[in-house]
């Protein structure tokens, strides 16, 4: 019991220290390169949070393939370090924009007598799921770099799409529940609102 507690404490401390160190390194690297000044947001443009085009470019591995092929190993390593730093900053600011959205919502509804408990719980669960996902991605980018993470995410999305197609092929388009007259249709894919 005591050993487990000490291990947990040591693990938490090392994660916190590693996270803090990465933040410091990222900022230093970005300031060194003249990409940002201390305390300044990296992204410009309308709407909250970092723009998706920039994020897409950061996670895109085509540059990395060229650099790895053409450049010297130290240069390639430097390139990967810088891309990792930018990707981490992008993820951090995405998390921050979601947090500020939720904070504004909470401040706006806290005095409303019409507040719906189920609506709030659903929103909170969506927010925490998003924070968890971005947290996991942050860790993965920190460990493996943005290119591998993007490839892995693309691969898992592809697998889930193929799995869905396979299930839809196997199941009939309309399933009839014998004797009830009730029919069930496969759910339409719900697409989130575009930017």
């Amino acid at each position, binding site marked *: 019991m005591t050993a487990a507690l000490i291990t947990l404490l040591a693990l938490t401390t090392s994660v916190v220290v590693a996270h803090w160190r990465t933040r410091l390194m990222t900022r230093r690297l970005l300031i060194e390169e003249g990409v940002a000044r201390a305390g300044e947001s990296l992204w410009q443009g309308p709407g*909250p*949070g*970092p*723009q*998706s085009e920039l*994020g*897409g470019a*950061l*996670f*895109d591995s085509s540059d990395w393939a060229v650099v790895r092929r053409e450049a010297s190993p130290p240069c390639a390593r430097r390139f990967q370090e810088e891309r990792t730093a930018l990707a981490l900053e*992008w993820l951090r600011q*995405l998390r921050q*924009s*979601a947090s500020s*959205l*939720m*904070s*504004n*919502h*909470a*401040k*706006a*509804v*806290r*005095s*409303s*007598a*019409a*507040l*719906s*408990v189920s*609506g*709030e719980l659903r*929103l*909170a669960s*969506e*927010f925490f799921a*998003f924070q968890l*996902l*971005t947290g996991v*991605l942050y860790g993965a980018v920190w460990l493996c770099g943005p290119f591998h*993470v*993007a490839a892995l*995410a*693309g691969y898992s*999305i592809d697998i889930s799409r193929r799995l869905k197609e396979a299930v839809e092929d196997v199941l009939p388009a309309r399933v009839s529940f014998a004797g009830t007259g009730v029919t069930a249709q496969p759910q339409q894919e719900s697409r*989130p*609102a*575009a*930017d």
Partner: protein
Amino acid sequence: MLGFAQPLLWGGNRMLSSAIWWAGLMAEAALLACAVRGRFLARYPLFYGYLSAVLLRSLLLVVIYQRFPAAYARTYWYSQFLLVLLGCGVVWEIYRRALHQYPGVVRMAQNVIPFLFALSASRVIAKAWESPKWLPGATTLETERDLRIVQAALLAGLVALALYYAVPLGKNLKGMIVGYGFFLATSLVQLTARNNLGESFQSAWQILQPTSYLLSLIFWLVALWSYAPAPKPQHESRLEVDYQALLKATRRGLGTTRTRLSRTIGS
């Protein structure tokens, strides 16, 4: 809680325990004096009621220890359970004072807090049901710990709601939360250690317990030196907020952020 220097302690430890006990008494008296002088005793009646009960109990224990030493342990534990119940009043005071200006948060608390209570108290009730003495724990220590877990769960739920909805608390309430939260956390650790380690932890516990309570009293003394209530909401209470529209807008905003992420990573 403060226990009068007990017979199990010896020499230096006994002197230290007595010093802590006297310091605690003075801190409790100072807290009550501040509230009387600042005329805010009636603003937090449950909190000051709890504090007065602790003070009276400490004085009563001295008399009992000197006149009827055989009854000391029994009186200590019975009064301890009374104080645990009065401690629920402190949590209720925090709830009442912190959230009453925010009907939305009150509505949320009215659903979340009973759920937390049911979750944490069900274990206590189940254990009491099975026990021949109608006590949830096999020992008095275990019973107190189980009841403290219920209080800690309720306080944690309240704090989580206040943080989530960014409810401004004011210096007095913040101090009450920090002080009582610290006391509950240290009590849980010490009661668990005493229950698991047995007599070997007894002498350390007799110093640790009043020391941690004394620290809570110091937190309270700093925060409740003068009356500093929670700031009143500026303009939001006067705004008629269309809640459903706000909820939809926030969910849409969160959806957009999520789409941005999935497009970027999955592209």
